């Protein structure tokens, strides 16, 4: 089911939808790649669709760009049905995962390509291409450079400038940053977000990396097995995941199985003890549930400290995550993760025994 964030109902300030998907399905033979998606894309927003490989996000994007047609359902752009409008007649442009830069053309020729197709004269083409090169921060002397001799980051910029040269209303991105090294990726993510703000265009980005999505997006849609399981702002996805899948997709989490005891209190299934939990989402009554605690909300309790829920464990491993340190703590047969800021001493006894604790408000109670 499509979940709409609480803020979503049409309030007056929200921009009107530019793209609307109603009941979109795509099947290949017996395989359903995209399974009944309803989605409103607001004009000017940066929407990221995130999901593991095989979740149908690329198929969804290809239908939006016009490279595939939906088996069922309607796609409308500004209220007009565009299901069968071919890509070259749509005011949209896709930045491919492979970037699809033309290897037989120079940087300038690649960027000016959509203008050449439109019949713009050579001088005007060059002027516009140089302008766009400034926008994406490519040096002017790259105009005649062979595009295959550019570095990965430079190619990203060429692909972006080429898409902008087409002047689309909506830009699609199919994981273009997946082959870029971490540091450059961070820079390009921020630049892309800046560019989104400067151009005011609608961006729809797909990726398997939620971290990437968090940095750039106004809204994130999480896809799984052809469906959008949750859509909302990065804060909503992070702070109120609808299920265990979304929760685990956000990052490493601690998951504990619990069930109601005879007295109605929550009892641990794979660790002993009873727990105080926040009520489940939507006020559902559950007999079994999963408690999910993010490693950064799990605390190691010092002497005199206490928390709503406590577990005894033994620290057996630690990893440096840069500014934080992750501790792996064995509680019975279960391994719990705790992340502390660097420099905070570990309040453990000599035999590395610790008391873990978390408060009910810092955990999610989710349907199993």
């Amino acid at each position: 089911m499509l979940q709409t964030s609480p803020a979503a109902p049409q309030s007056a300030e929200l921009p009107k939808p530019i793209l609307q998907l109603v009941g979109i399905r795509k099947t290949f033979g017996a395989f359903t790649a995209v399974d009944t998606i309803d989605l409103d894309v607001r004009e000017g927003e940066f929407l990221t669709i995130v999901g593991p490989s095989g979740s149908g996000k690329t198929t969804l994007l290809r239908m939006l760009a016009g490279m595939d047609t939906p088996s069922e359902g309607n796609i409308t752009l500004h209220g007009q049905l565009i299901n069968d409008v071919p890509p070259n007649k749509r005011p949209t442009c896709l930045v491919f995962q492979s970037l699809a830069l033309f290897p037989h053309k120079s940087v300038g020729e690649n960027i000016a390509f959509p203008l050449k197709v439109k019949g713009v004269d050579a001088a005007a083409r060059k002027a516009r291409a140089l302008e766009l090169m400034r926008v994406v921060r490519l040096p002017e002397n790259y105009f005649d450079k062979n595009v295959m001799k550019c570095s990965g980051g430079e190619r990203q910029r060429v692909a972006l400038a080429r898409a902008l040269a087409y002047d689309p209303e909506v830009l699609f991105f199919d994981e273009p940053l997946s082959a870029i090294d971490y540091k450059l990726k961070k820079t390009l993510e921020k630049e892309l977000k800046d560019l989104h703000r400067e151009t005011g265009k609608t961006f729809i980005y797909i990726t398997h990396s939620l971290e990437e999505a968090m940095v750039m997006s106004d809204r994130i849609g999480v896809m799984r097995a052809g469906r959008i399981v949750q859509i909302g702002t990065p804060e909503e996805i992070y702070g109120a995941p609808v299920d265990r899948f979304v929760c685990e997709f956000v990052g490493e989490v601690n998951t504990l199985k619990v069930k109601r005891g005879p007295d109605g209190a929550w009892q641990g299934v794979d660790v002993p003890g009873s727990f105080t939990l926040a009520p489940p989402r939507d006020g559902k009554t559950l007999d079994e549930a999963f408690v999910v605690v993010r490693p950064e909300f799990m605390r190691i309790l010092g002497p005199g400290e206490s928390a709503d829920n406590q577990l005894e464990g033994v620290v057996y491993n630690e990893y440096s995550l840069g500014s934080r340190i992750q501790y792996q703590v064995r509680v019975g047969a279960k391994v719990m993760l705790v992340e502390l800021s660097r420099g905070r001493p570990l309040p453990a006894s000599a035999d590395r025994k610790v008391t873990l604790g978390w408060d009910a408000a810092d955990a999610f109670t989710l349907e199993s």
Partner: protein
Amino acid sequence: MGHKRTNAAIWTWTLFVLVAIYLPIVCGALASFNKSRYFGFPIKTYSTEWWQKTLDSIEIGMIVKTSISIALLVTVFSVVIATFGALAFARYEWKGRKLYQKLILLPIFFPQPVLGLAMLLGFNAVGIQTSWMTAVFAHMIWIVPVVTLVIAIQVYGFDPSLEEAAYDLGCSRTQVFREVTLPLLWPGIWSGMLFAFLLSWSNFPLSLYTTGADSTIPEWLYAKMVAGYTPMVPALGTMATLGAACLLLAGGLIGILLRRRAAA
């Protein structure tokens, strides 16, 4: 030490292969400079007399013209058919593609004299008078599959998203082909053209059955060797080889220039 020995072995082997390949050609060339009418080594007197006679011969002029006409037409038709054939072979998924991939290769494995005879019988059956034009058709039966393979190799190395990107950026189907597909397949098409020309230029078994009253260079050479040998045979043979070598060289040079321009 071992490295040196490997190098020596590589050089010896290369030299041996080169000598084995070029010795017969050189012998043929030498034979054409023999003043005496009959073939035999050692050559007593050298002369360019037979080369002059070959160049002056009206009959040979016509034969060369026939060979060139056939080869050029075969090149043009084969490359057009094979380019689209290669796209069907290597690029697009369609029903029957697997069968097509096998069927297209079959003529290559068919013995050419049998293929030639079969075509002659076929032409007679439908009442077509054989001439150099029927030979164009016969050559294509064998050459189109070869050229399709050559161009298909280029198609396999082609990222289909490039065509999609061009289409997405506003190109019509024709513009996609002209701006992206054709330029990127060009190296393969170029090799295909050279192959088509050279395979047709030197083809004997298919020409023998399908040229009718006309004659190509290989046919003429064969006829003269069977009866009426003069050193004009090795002279024309050497000229044909040199012509083909020049074409190949020019083709290679153009290829290098194109690549250089692309890399600039």
